[in-house]
């Protein structure tokens, strides 16, 4: 019995030693074949002093690399954002550290989410998310010129509908607002919903009724700021309105800007690229997007 014990331990020691031989040997072999790393060479470190959330930044052979920290749901998220030489286009986004919920927020580290940033023009934004903190759009500060105004979305949404908003201003007041969404075949959402071909919910208001309620609310308040659009592009400021109103708000704002005679740079209100959030993980997705934008803004400030 004693003999077997000793022999067993000896055998274990020998086999363990052999195993480590294999491990070390394979490591030595692997090192020979290992090529240069894919990381681009750093040519210049950039000063990140005073830039909040920016961990490090450098100029590389292919462009720029910015490491940024942003606040997620479960803790800090660390991102490595690579930009092209012009510092405008995102070439790659990596999540180096995150503590988001497994299976939910943690999906921001997955390629399905991250790959949509590759080649995207910065800044990036999620549907219904506004890039700048929305300034209070109150009508007291500006006078609206009378007339009819119209704004149209740049392109169709995921379902193939293109939003458009028309607005009439009389005596400096908004007197009529119409929100319409036109499908690729020219069909109007208002007509479709009235005929029951475009159904949102069985018992709620139809799309047309909701759009009209929204328009009426805008006429009543003469301002968009009461809408408080949340991250999903929805609002609870108007009862019965459960549809995503982000598109409407953007377009109505454009109409107002036109009426106020302001630069209609907002024709493309969000120059940049729209990306999709991880389903069910708005906070994590927003944090990632904000981190990327922070990296972009930092780059613009030092470039």
């Amino acid at each position, binding site marked *: 019995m004693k003999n077997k014990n000793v022999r067993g331990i000896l055998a*274990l020691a020998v*086999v363990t030693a052999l195993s480590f031989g294999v491990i070390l040997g394979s490591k030595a072999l692997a090192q020979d074949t290992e090529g240069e790393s894919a990381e681009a060479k750093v040519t210049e470190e950039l000063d990140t002093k005073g830039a909040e959330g920016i961990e490090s930044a450098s100029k590389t052979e292919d462009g720029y690399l910015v490491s940024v920290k942003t606040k997620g749901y479960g803790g800090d998220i660390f991102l490595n954002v690579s930009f092209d030489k012009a510092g405008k286009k995102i070439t790659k986004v990596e999540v180096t550290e995150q503590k988001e919920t497994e*299976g939910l927020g943690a999906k921001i580290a997955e*390629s399905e989410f991250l790959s949509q940033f590759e080649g995207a023009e910065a800044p990036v934004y999620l549907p219904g998310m506004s890039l700048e903190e929305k300034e209070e759009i109150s009508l007291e500060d500006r006078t609206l010129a009378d007339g009819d105004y119209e704004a149209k979305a740049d392109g169709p949404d995921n379902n193939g509908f293109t939003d458009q908003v028309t607005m009439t201003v009389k005596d400096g007041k908004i007197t009529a607002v119409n929100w319409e969404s036109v499908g690729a075949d020219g069909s109007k959402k208002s007509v479709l919903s009235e005929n029951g071909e475009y159904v949102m919910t069985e018992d709620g208001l139809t799309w047309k009724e909701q759009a009209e309620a929204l328009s009426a609310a805008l006429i009543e308040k003469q301002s968009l700021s009461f809408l408080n659009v949340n991250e999903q592009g929805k609002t609870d400021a108007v009862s019965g309105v459960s549809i995503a109103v982000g598109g409407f708000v953007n377009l109505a704002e454009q109409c107002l800007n036109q009426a106020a005679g302001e630069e209609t740079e907002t024709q493309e209100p969000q120059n940049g690229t729209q990306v999709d959030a991880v389903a069910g993980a708005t906070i994590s997705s927003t944090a990632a997007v904000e981190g990327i934008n922070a990296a972009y803004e930092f780059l613009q400030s030092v470039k």
Partner: protein
Amino acid sequence: MSEARVINGPHIRTQRTTRAVMMDVAISLVPVLLGAIYYFGIRALYLAGLSVAVCVLTEYIWQKLAKKPVTAGDFSAVVTGLLLVFNMPVTVPLWVLVAADVFSILLVKQMFGGLGNNFVNPALMGRLLVMVAWPQAVMQYVVPKTVSVDAVSAATILGSVKGGNTPEYSYLQMFLGEMPGAMGETSKLLLLVGFGYLCYKGVVNAEAAFTYIATVTVLTFIFGPEGLFTGDILLNLFGGGLIMGGCYMLTDYVFVSRRGKLLYAATAGVITAAIRIFSVYPEGICFGILTANCMAGMLSLLYKKHVYGIRKIKA
């Protein structure tokens, strides 16, 4: 307490005591420990020392306080301490490790009556506690020192593949242990070396471990991510903690009958595979084995231990 205990015969005399068995298990884990130190640095050794010390001490103090026979020296707490630490990444905060140790020994093992009476594997339960209570402490896995000098954290291979990425490590690297993961489960080679030692000493029955591992591998292959028969066998085999789970976590002394043991192992395998295939958790080992643990009583009804001296009555 042990004065009036009657144990029905027949008895097999053996020199194999709990202490000897557990010592063998502890010895078999030494190669894994060496591997952990090689891959993740000397902190792995400190953590292992701490974990073992806390486990043994907890058991000792409890048994003293409860005025029970002190069995803290029987190496079973040592094994629990080692298995627990091997289930954590090297970056685990000390207090999380200590909490898991105390929880495993005190609540899972001793409160249920100590060695042999606990209905689930204490080490796995400790891991589950940490997974649920402090996920950020154990889900930040670290790339081995041999890959990157900085402590770069990374998702486990299974986790990252589940997220739609292609694995960055070769199967050989996964087998040898050069991959991010918990300290003890990266090197399949060293785990198998230790397991080989246990088989040689006759401490474990390899059949159950083999059944478990084979069930998971076959099922994940059949119900692969891209349809039937598209699973990555080697990835599922070497990419995570399957070998660790099968060889060290699964084995249970509850079943004497061989078929019962195999049924138990297969059950654990089916649950693990189902979790890997359908849920958000990439590993599923912890849940798979723990669920099978809980079902052990029910499964043992199907395959009863042999009862000597009674003829089966035909109903």
